[in-house]
């Protein structure tokens, strides 16, 4: 008698679990995370990443859900209004503008990567992605040339991405851009429900098959024995690194290759002793963890993974009911995301990248962390033989679907902001946001050479927007509203109470860490104190047009949203209320 209701109940719970897990999967798990792990040396990055997850990510995540729900009950759905109304202080309303700017600016380059995924899927479907040389071995050069031509990073200069063929990115980006706005205009939550419940578990399953193939790659090129999966796993997870370094013209030593094999180390030792511009050094875990850039990259990745610090959660939480569970909801989504990112994403691109490109290739030749997956994974699919085309199509198409759900969520804060500040209806707000993002995406798409526009946005937004916004939110949560009031709000409807130790994290640890990371990044990467000025800062200092126009875009978007928020009558009412 009770069998059917029990089954329905189980199906409902499984559906919710799949939906929550599915919503956590995105480009960041399979493309951005492995690229950063490779760039910052694997094991040390993982330690910084987990530390950031517990000490920064989770507290901010819970704070955002709670603040959003609080603001939503008072009729506001975008972060300027939410932060303004719950604090009654105009300064926080202005800082909240970051929560509208950041997702829109991220969308401007995220939609390109989304288009690349679709382009890869379509080209796999047409069988154009079998990168082998004359001897039938995986051909990295061919894969690199395909990617470079597609995205316009091929030495042809800016604007070379405007290619109209099947292997050019232009039409894919147009299709994806239009698709996003059609979905957002028509309302998305019901329409894309099946993405999360069916397509995303299929993506995870596909990724697991790819992980299995990566782990069984062995040594793809028998002529280069050190390029193997075992060394790839070591590169990803080893805490101590033995590095071959080369001294640059500016006198700084740069890592060029991680060494594993004792015989190779001995052979290189003899060469290095005769060449003063090269050295072999052992870099311990402690020294790696002293790198401020590593912590900033780890914290930035946590922000992207958990969708915190850029106004997404706070907007979605503003639509929740008072007794909805924000504690377990956010922790479940975060844990699902971590499984996808660390246990699956971390086992794909990096070990495969070392197996095909070697540690020198993965650290130096690839250059952009975002591009690594697009170069490495086709090599894995090629090594899968006949099934490679199928898995290549499945992986990139499902990743494209996952990216659509993420990009739609990036547009929501902007839509909510325009509707509540300018009083626009859905059609008008979608049209205005579509115009703004089309201009921005066009700029990023045009400046494709060296992916300078994408890299500029991906460098400055996490550092100068997401961390300050997260800092603002945690200060409001723990200091302005007070922990007792904030936690009481957070615990409404919650399946469990946040452990007491997190009180210290909310109040002291998270804000202090955010300040330290931001300060250390500014001193080192911007001012060059205690290290090298970041290449993205050097790009600006060199007067690079792409970098400056991209920064100009950021300021233009910021100025517009700030002006709108200062003019909005709905927001002025908050100020008038607080003054009275």
């Amino acid at each position, binding site marked *: 008698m009770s069998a059917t209701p029990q089954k329905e109940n189980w199906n409902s719970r499984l559906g919710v679990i799949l939906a929550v897990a599915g919503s956590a999967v995105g480009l960041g798990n399979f493309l951005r995370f492995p690229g950063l792990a490779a760039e910052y040396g694997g094991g040390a990055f993982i330690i910084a990443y987990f530390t950031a997850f517990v000490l920064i990510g989770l507290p901010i995540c819970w704070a955002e859900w709670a603040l959003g729900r609080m603001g939503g009950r008072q009729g506001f759905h975008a972060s300027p209004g939410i932060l303004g109304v719950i604090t009654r202080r105009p300064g926080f309303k202005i800082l909240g503008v970051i929560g509208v700017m950041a997702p829109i600016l991220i969308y401007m380059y995220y939609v390109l990567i989304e288009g690349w995924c679709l382009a890869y899927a379509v080209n796999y479907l047409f069988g154009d992605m079998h990168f082998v040389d004359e001897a039938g071995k995986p051909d990295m050069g061919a894969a690199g040339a395909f990617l470079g031509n597609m995205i316009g990073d091929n030495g042809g200069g800016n604007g070379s991405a405007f290619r109209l063929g099947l292997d050019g990115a232009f039409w894919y980006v147009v299709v994806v851009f239009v698709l996003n706005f059609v979905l957002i205009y028509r309302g998305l939550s019901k329409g894309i429900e099946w993405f999360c419940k069916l397509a995303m578990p299929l993506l995870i399953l596909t990724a697991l098959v790819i992980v299995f193939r990566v782990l069984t790659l062995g040594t793809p090129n028998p002529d280069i024995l050190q390029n193997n999966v075992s060394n790839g796993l070591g590169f990803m997870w080893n*805490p101590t690194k033995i590095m071959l370094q080369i001294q640059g013209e500016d006198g700084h030593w740069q890592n060029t290759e991680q060494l594993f094999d004792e015989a190779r180390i001995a052979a290189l030792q003899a060469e290095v002793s005769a060449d003063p511009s090269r050295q072999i050094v052992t870099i311990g875990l402690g020294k790696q963890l002293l790198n401020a850039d590593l912590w900033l990259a780890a914290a930035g990745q946590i922000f992207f993974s958990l969708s915190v610090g850029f106004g*997404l959660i706070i907007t*979605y939480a503003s639509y929740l009911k008072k007794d909805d569970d924000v504690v377990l909801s956010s922790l479940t989504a975060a844990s699902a995301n971590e499984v996808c990112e660390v246990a699956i994403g971390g086992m794909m691109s990096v070990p495969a990248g070392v197996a095909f490109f070697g540690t020198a290739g993965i650290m130096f030749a690839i250059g952009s962390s975002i591009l690594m997956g697009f170069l490495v994974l086709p090599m894995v699919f090629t090594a899968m033989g006949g099934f490679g085309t199928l898995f290549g199509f499945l992986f990139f198409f499902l990743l494209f679907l996952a990216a659509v759900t993420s990009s739609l969520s990036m547009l929501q804060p902007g839509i909510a902001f325009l509707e509540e500040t300018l009083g626009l209806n859905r059609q008008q707000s979608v049209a205005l946001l579509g115009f703004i993002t089309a201009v921005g995406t066009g700029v990023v798409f045009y400046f494709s050479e060296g992916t300078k526009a994408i890299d500029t946005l991906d460098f400055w937004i996490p550092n100068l927007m997401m961390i300050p916004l997260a800092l603002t939110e945690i200060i409001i949560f723990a200091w302005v509203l007070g922990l007792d009031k904030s936690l009481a709000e957070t615990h409404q409807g919650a399946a469990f109470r946040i452990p007491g130790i997190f009180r210290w994290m909310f109040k002291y640890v998270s804000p202090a860490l955010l300040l330290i990371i931001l300060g250390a990044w500014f001193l080192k990467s911007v001012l060059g104190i205690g290290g090298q000025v970041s290449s993205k800062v050097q790009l600006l200092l060199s007067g690079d047009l792409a970098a400056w126009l991209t920064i100009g875009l950021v300021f233009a978007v910021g100025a517009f949203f700030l002006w709108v928020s200062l003019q909005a009558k709905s927001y002025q009412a908050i100020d008038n209320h607080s003054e009275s």
Partner: protein
Amino acid sequence: MSIGGWFIFLIAVGSVLTLFCWCMYKVITTPGETEHLHRIGEHTPDEEA
């Protein structure tokens, strides 16, 4: 991969899997939880309108 690498690997993967399984357990065993569990992408301004 070195012993240190294996250690970090097992701790990292083990801890995320443990956390995920615990969350799943809480979702399944807490009465009425599925009605109160939410995720990004579920509630949108259009629904509100």
